[in-house]
C-alpha cells in the first residue's frame, strides 16, 4: 500500500480543473433501480490502455466490456498522441500511455464542421491528451469513441491519472479505504474511525471485492446473529449508523452477489447461509 499512501498524501496543483475532485465511486446511484442492473455502468472510469485491451467482452457480439468484473462503458484515458489520421467521417488518433496503444475516434458532425476544425489543431503528435469517451468494438477491434479530447497542460495530470486508475482498480477489487473519505483524503486516515473488523480481514473470500458500505452492512447482519426473519433496513440504518441511502446501496450490492436475500418484504434482509 505504500504507493497508494504516497498518492493520497500528495497534493496536486492546478491539474487542469477537469476532474481533480475525484469521484465517489461507492456513493453513486440512488439504489432505486432494480437490483439486476448495475447502477454504475455509465460511470466514467479512469483506466490505463492495458486495462481496455485486457477488458473481457461482457456479452458476445455486443460492445460491452468488463474490467475487474464490472461493466464499463465510459472511460477516460491520458496518453501521448502517436498519430493523427484525418478521415472523411472521423479523425482517428493513436494514443499511447506507456501501457499499450489504442485508437481513439472522434466522429465529425457534418453540421458542426467549424467546431470540429476548431478543436483539431489544439494539440499535435507527441502531445499528452486526456480523452473522455465510450468503449467500442468494431470488427473485433477495440477503440474509444471520443466525446472530448483535450490537451494536458500540466504534466502532473498524466501521473495523477495513472494513480487514479490504480486507485479505482483497488477500490473495486479490494474495497475502498476504511472510512468513507473519498479520494481526497483517502488512505491518509488508514487508522481512522471505522472500527469495522473487516479492515484487515482481506483474506476472507466472502468480503473480497465489496465496498465499505456493503461490508459494514454485512458485518452488522452477521453480528446481530442473522435472524431468519431478517432485519429491516431502518434498523440496520440505526444500529449500524448508516444512512438509509447507504443501506440501500449496500443491500443492492449484496443482493446482486447473492450474499443476502430479502425476507418479509423488499426492505428486510438476511444473510444467505451456505
Amino acid at each position, binding site marked *: 500500500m505504500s*504507493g497508494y499512501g*504516497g498518492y493520497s498524501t500528495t497534493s496536486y*496543483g492546478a491539474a487542469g480543473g477537469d476532474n481533480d475532485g475525484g469521484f465517489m465511486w461507492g456513493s453513486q446511484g440512488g439504489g432505486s433501480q432494480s437490483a439486476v442492473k448495475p447502477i454504475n455502468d455509465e460511470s466514467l472510469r479512469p483506466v*490505463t490502455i492495458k486495462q481496455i485491451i485486457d477488458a473481457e467482452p461482457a456479452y458476445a457480439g455486443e460492445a460491452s466490456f468488463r474490467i475487474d468484473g464490472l461493466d464499463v462503458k465510459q472511460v477516460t484515458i491520458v496518453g501521448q498522441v502517436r498519430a493523427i489520421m484525418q478521415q472523411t467521417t472521423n479523425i482517428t488518433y493513436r494514443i499511447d500511455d*506507456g*501501457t*499499450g496503444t489504442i485508437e481513439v475516434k472522434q466522429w465529425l458532425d457534418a453540421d458542426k464542421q467549424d467546431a470540429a476544425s476548431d478543436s483539431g489543431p489544439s494539440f499535435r503528435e507527441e502531445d499528452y491528451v486526456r480523452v473522455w469517451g465510450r468503449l467500442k468494438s468494431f470488427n473485433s477491434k477495440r477503440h474509444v469513441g471520443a466525446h472530448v479530447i483535450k490537451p494536458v497542460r500540466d504534466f502532473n495530470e498524466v501521473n495523477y491519472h*495513472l494513480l487514479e486508475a490504480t486507485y479505482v482498480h483497488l477500490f473495486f477489487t479490494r474495497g475502498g479505504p476504511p472510512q468513507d473519505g473519498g479520494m481526497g483524503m483517502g488512505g491518509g486516515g488508514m487508522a481512522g474511525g471505522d472500527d469495522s473488523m473487516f479492515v484487515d480481514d482481506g483474506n476472507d473470500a466472502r468480503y473480497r471485492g465489496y465496498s465499505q458500505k456493503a461490508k459494514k452492512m454485512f458485518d452488522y447482519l452477521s453480528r446481530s446473529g442473522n435472524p431468519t426473519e431478517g432485519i429491516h433496513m431502518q434498523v440496520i440504518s440505526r444500529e449500524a449508523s448508516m444512512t438509509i441511502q447507504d443501506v440501500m446501496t449496500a443491500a443492492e450490492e449484496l443482493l446482486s452477489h447473492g450474499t443476502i436475500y430479502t425476507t418479509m418484504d423488499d426492505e428486510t434482509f438476511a444473510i444467505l447461509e451456505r
Partner: protein
Amino acid sequence: MDSVSTPRISANMLDAYVGQNVIIVGKVMQLRGDSALLDANGQVNAILNLESHLMAGNAAQIIGKVLEDLSVKVYNAKDLGSNVDYQVAQSVVDITQQYKHLFVFENTSGMN
C-alpha cells in the same frame, strides 16, 4: 490496439530493463551536446536524437531503449517544464512495479 508496453522506470532499475524500451521522467542535470544527464531517483545518461530540445534544470520525459552500459538511446524526448512533482512520478514508477497487470504487458521485449 497494440499490446506493447513501455514501462515507466527510474534510474535505479535500469539494469533490469537492458534491451527494452522504457519511459523515464527526471530532472535534466546537464546537457552535453548529443547527450544529457538526468536525475530520476539516480542518474541516467541519455543519448539524445536530433529532435530533442531539453532544458537544463527542467523536467523531461525520455522514451528510449536501455543499452548494455545502462545509458538510454532516446527515441523521443519531451521537455516538461519546471512544475513536475518528482515524487508523484516516482509513485507511478512504484505502482507500475506493484500492479504490473494494470501497466505492463509481459513478453514485450521492446524490440519494435
